[in-house]
């Protein structure tokens, strides 16, 4: 058995099993996130939300998925066919492959690589291509405008996100995600770096094109933005991609600022709970905030969005980065 596991085929089998163990719960989570979002928003708006399919409407996600599968896929006549299909596929694939490096507990990552943070940053910066390709390939004005907005928006907010990550890395001294979580065993970075935490969270909203930054699909002026021409499974892929991206960004927030799998206090009732449970709970808190923001805030105007990214977040995070470096150096807290 050991010989088989050490052979190339065995290693491949283990990796596939690990990937499935990561992705299957993730996709089920994504399905129920759509349900949770509609229920939470319904509660906030004093409605009932989905309650017909199954007990408490719990089977609603599967009913939706089935409906999506059975619809006809329409490819517009003027569209660039291959790219039209590649766009949504790319969105979902990118949202899923990033999970390869996420440590769910100490040592529980499919690939615990040295440059984990850079990998996440690289993958999240690619997310824009799915949208841009879809918008361009649709050969429609609304889709194209949505794609342009999205490209400008995601590139802008990536800059401040990168600076926030650099600030965290200064306090850790490693690019490895497991090391980043371990460095938070005394205090979660959300406390000393609180303003950065807020900036990071708002940037993740912008990165995932979630309200109040969902101008890429702003339905009141662009119908549905980049996904206006999509139907059936191609639309479902965008849908899954967006929610998987929300999970990913919540996981990033958890790892960088909320101490990953660590309990809030390393004391008796808290450290009985296994690490993955804490990790999932923290992700759920972040996801709830995503929905909460969506139900609460009106959409930003596009110029204000750009102003927020370039004129407020960028200088502020740069200043805070320098301040952090200064404090770490003066106090001698720089990690070796």
């Amino acid at each position, binding site marked *: 058995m050991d010989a088989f596991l050490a052979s190339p085929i065995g290693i491949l089998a283990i990796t596939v099993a690990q990937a499935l163990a990561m992705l299957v719960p993730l996709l089920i989570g994504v399905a129920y996130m759509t349900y949770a979002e509609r229920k939470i*928003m319904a509660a906030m708006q004093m409605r009932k939300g989905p309650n017909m399919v199954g007990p408490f409407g719990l089977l609603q996600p599967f009913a939706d998925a089935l409906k999506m599968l059975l619809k006809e896929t329409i490819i517009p006549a003027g569209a660039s066919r291959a790219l039209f299909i590649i766009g949504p596929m790319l969105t979902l694939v990118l949202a899923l492959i990033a999970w390869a490096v996420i440590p769910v507990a100490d040592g529980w990552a499919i690939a615990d690589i040295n440059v984990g943070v850079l990998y996440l940053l690289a993958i999240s910066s690619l997310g824009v291509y799915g949208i841009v390709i879809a918008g361009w390939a649709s050969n429609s004005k609304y889709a194209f405008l949505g794609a342009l907005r999205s490209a400008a928006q995601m590139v802008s907010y990536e800059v401040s996100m990168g600076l926030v990550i650099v600030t965290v890395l200064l306090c850790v001294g490693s690019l490895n995600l497991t090391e980043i979580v371990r460095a938070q065993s005394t205090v979660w970075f959300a406390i000393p770096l609180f303003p950065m935490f807020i900036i990071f969270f708002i940037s993740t909203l912008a990165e995932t094109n979630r309200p109040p930054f*969902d101008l890429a699909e702003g339905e009141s002026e662009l119908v*549905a933005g980049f996904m206006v021409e999509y139907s059936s499974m191609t639309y479902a892929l965008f849908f899954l991609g967006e929610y998987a991206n929300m999970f990913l960004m919540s996981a990033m927030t958890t790892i960088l600022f909320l101490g990953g799998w660590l309990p809030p206090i390393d004391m008796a009732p808290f450290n009985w709970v296994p690490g993955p449970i804490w990790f999932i709970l923290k992700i759920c808190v972040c996801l709830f905030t995503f929905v909460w923001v969506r139900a609460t805030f009106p*959409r930003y105007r596009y110029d204000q969005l750009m102003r927020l990214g370039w004129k407020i977040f960028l200088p502020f995070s740069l200043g805070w980065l320098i301040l952090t470096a200064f404090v770490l150096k003066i106090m001698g807290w720089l990690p070796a």
Partner: protein
Amino acid sequence: MIAALAFYVFAAILIASAVMVVTSRNPVHSVLFLILAFFNASALFLLAGAEFLAMILVIVYVGAVAVLFLFIVMMLDIDFSRLREGFQRYAPIGAVIGAILFLELLFVFGSWQFAPEAGALRMNAAPENGLSNTAALGQLIYTDYIFLFQVAGLILLVAMIGAIVLTLRDKPANSRRQDIGVQVARGEAVVLTSVPPRKGLAELGIVRRPVPAPPKPKAIHGHGHGDDDHGHGSDDKHGGGHH
């Protein structure tokens, strides 16, 4: 064995997509093939053990530069028939220039002198003293060659300032400016109150002023500026067909 196989796969895709960058008819496809080429180059870096460079290549080139590139190319309005018009006439000149460049490269690489240790150094990209790739690069750039690195940065800064100076124009005196603070500030007309659930504003003694009728309703656009529409507009996005 697997590493060698992966190398040939990535290298083959890299070269094929590089060829497609030059030959594809649609410039947007060209840019997308360029991105594919970047990706495979990054994979080759990974295979060579240069993990930091691989990630930086993706972040900088694919994540930022190519996005802007694609952004511009997508917006170009190109007439493809005009683009291929002078192809026959200019092909020989292009071929000559290409041949000269190729010969030059051939001469350069033909007379390349390798340092004696170079071969051994190239084999292990990861440094020997147990440092990770990233730490080793940081050591080199920020400790050993800090001044050269800063000078390179200053040169880029000068280039950036130059570009800004060239494009900066004085605004005409009568141009309007936005004051975001004033725009988003809450004026006298807006009151923030806590509304009791299931009762509404009437309970608080707040009466909504009647909205003055628009001078002349133009078309079918029924702009319901009622309070109910605002927050839930986004609900349609995903809810789409569910309701």
